[in-house]
């Protein structure tokens, strides 16, 4: 395997919590991201999933150095971008771009679409005025819009169209890495499919690598090559997509997968959802961070923090029964009753 495009090692972002007006005293630390490591190959999609507040979006912004990390390294083609100076950072920005979640907040309402897409090229001094305009038309076609849309303002577009504009802006400087921060979760389901397919198509054509932040596992299943599951600022499991869906090792991953809504009524009522809330990252539980909600937790989980080994951070990874999603326990009582009624109705008809 060639050298990865992106290598993240021990990445952390801690926010001090202060109290006091004049002599502010630090009374705690929010560990938004706390030691995250992964790699991303060229042309690959790594999905980062987890509940809200687990640090996915913070990780995304750290990778692009939109916020400064508290610790750790982000190596892009072997160079640590956390220590780049101004000029080098600008050069890096040409190579890595971002697509945002909210298509209504991610476009400047006073810019025409053409200006929005042309601006990255302008900032980096790519091409002259005329060929920039040609490139804007090309990009608009690439994302499924028409060249005449360049004259319009964002408010004249639907959410899905705006997201396409955001993607065109990200592609304007021909990046190698695109961080997609929940790019479809604000869209209607029918539009989600279009945008996800567009992203997949662009990846194939342009050889992009995606760091794909999401909380919707159905979307992730469609786009990702590998999946990293985050909980409270840490990666608890990272694996190839198929392996993760077929055999989730971490209890948290199992709970997430079990929570996917399923159209089969026979499966209804069989899943015990996780109890409780995510603990505060201001005061994460000692030992394994998931032990407060884990149905399998033992003493060791409360005392010792498990390391990420073989893609899983769990003391009991070896011992837990293989999960799978096979519910062979028969029907839930309600579902059975309803099925019987349907059968009866069909007989009478």
């Amino acid at each position: 395997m060639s050298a990865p495009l992106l290598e993240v090692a021990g990445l952390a972002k801690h926010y001090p919590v202060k109290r006091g007006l004049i002599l502010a005293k630090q009374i705690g630390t929010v560990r938004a991201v706390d030691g995250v490591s992964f790699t991303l190959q060229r042309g690959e999609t790594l999905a980062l999933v987890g509940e809200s507040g687990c640090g996915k979006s913070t990780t995304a912004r750290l990778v692009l150095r939109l916020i400064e990390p508290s610790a750790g390294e982000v190596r892009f083609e072997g160079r640590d971008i956390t220590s780049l100076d101004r000029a080098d950072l600008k050069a890096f920005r040409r190579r890595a771009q971002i697509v945002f979640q909210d298509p209504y907040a991610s476009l400047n309402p006073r810019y025409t679409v053409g200006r929005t897409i042309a601006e990255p090229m302008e900032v980096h001094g790519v091409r002259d005025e005329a060929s920039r305009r040609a490139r804007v038309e090309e990009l608009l076609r690439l994302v499924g819009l028409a060249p005449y849309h360049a004259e319009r303002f964002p408010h004249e577009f639907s959410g899905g169209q705006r997201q396409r504009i955001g993607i065109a802006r990200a592609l304007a400087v021909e990046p190698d890495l695109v961080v997609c921060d929940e790019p479809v979760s604000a869209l209607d389901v029918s539009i989600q499919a279009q945008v996800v397919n567009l992203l997949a198509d662009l990846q194939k054509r342009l050889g992009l690598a995606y760091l794909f932040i999401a909380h919707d596992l159905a979307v992730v299943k469609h786009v990702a090559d590998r999946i990293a599951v985050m909980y409270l600022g840490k990666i608890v499991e990272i694996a190839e997509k198929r392996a993760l869906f077929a055999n989730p090792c971490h209890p948290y991953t199992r709970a997430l997968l079990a929570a996917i809504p399923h159209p089969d009524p026979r499966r209804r009522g069989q899943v015990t959802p996780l109890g409780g809330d995510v603990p505060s990252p201001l005061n994460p539980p000692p030992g394994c961070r998931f032990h407060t909600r884990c149905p399998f937790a033992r003493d060791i989980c409360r005392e010792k923090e498990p390391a990420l080994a073989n893609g899983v951070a769990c003391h009991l990874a070896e011992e837990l029964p293989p999960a799978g999603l096979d519910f062979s326990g028969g029907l839930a009582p309600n579902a059975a009753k309803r099925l019987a009624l349907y059968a009866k109705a069909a007989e009478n008809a």
Partner: protein
Amino acid sequence: MSATAAPAALPEAPRRPSPLRMLLRDAAAAASLVFVVLVVLAALLADVISPHDPFATDLMAIMQPPSAQYWLGTDGQGRDILSRMIHGLRVTLGMGLASLVAGGLLGALIGFMAAFYKRLDGLLMRLMDMLLSFPAILFGLALAAIFGPGLVSVVIALSIATVPLMARIVRGAALVVMGLDYIEAARAIGMSDARLILRHVAPNCLSPIFVFATLRLGQVILLGSALSFLGLGAQPPTAELGAMAAQGRNFLFIAPHISVIPSLGIFAIVLAFNVLGDALRDALDPKLRI
């Protein structure tokens, strides 16, 4: 000709009306614009269009009601009110606009700096709070004591009094805008801070700035008049609308027009600027330009 397959004509984006056309579409805004232009022209051409010398006293005709000779009547010293108002526009508008522009620009700069550079925020805003705690009249008194009474002192005092208000409004608006994703996108593109502020943050803060500036113009004109009234601003016999209204108060019961006519002038100017500012804000918003 017809045999060759013509490329399908691309649908043309409908032409967007210019901001000026948008402005003129609204009757009240158009009227305000015309009025403001006339007022500014009158102020500029005061020497040409005034029917009388604004300083010439006619002691045989004091406190005259409007007549064919003196269209708006005469004041307590027999000076033509119309001529004095036309000359007074120069002083009043110049004073109001100068202090609004100077104070507003400085305030906006401070507001953007405070919003953008977190480290400066506390320091700058506490300074603004200090300024806010002094009434504008007090600045006027202090400056008059230093530089002597006069219009320059008034303009400086009103500018200083405008700075903290504008800074607060701009900082608030900028903080809201800077939390939006397109600012993050702009950063991810790698543009300079100056470009980010000028192209992305500032234009999206325009609405509250416009509203405040038009309201503040009225306040500044009134404050300037108040300072003139206290004897700190325009010195007699300089014609200034606020000072004229103040001087007429002695005759309010026998010849109310001496006070009322300049007051109506101030009222009309402030109203026109308010309507115009409102319409301008809407005309510059692409969302409302259809």
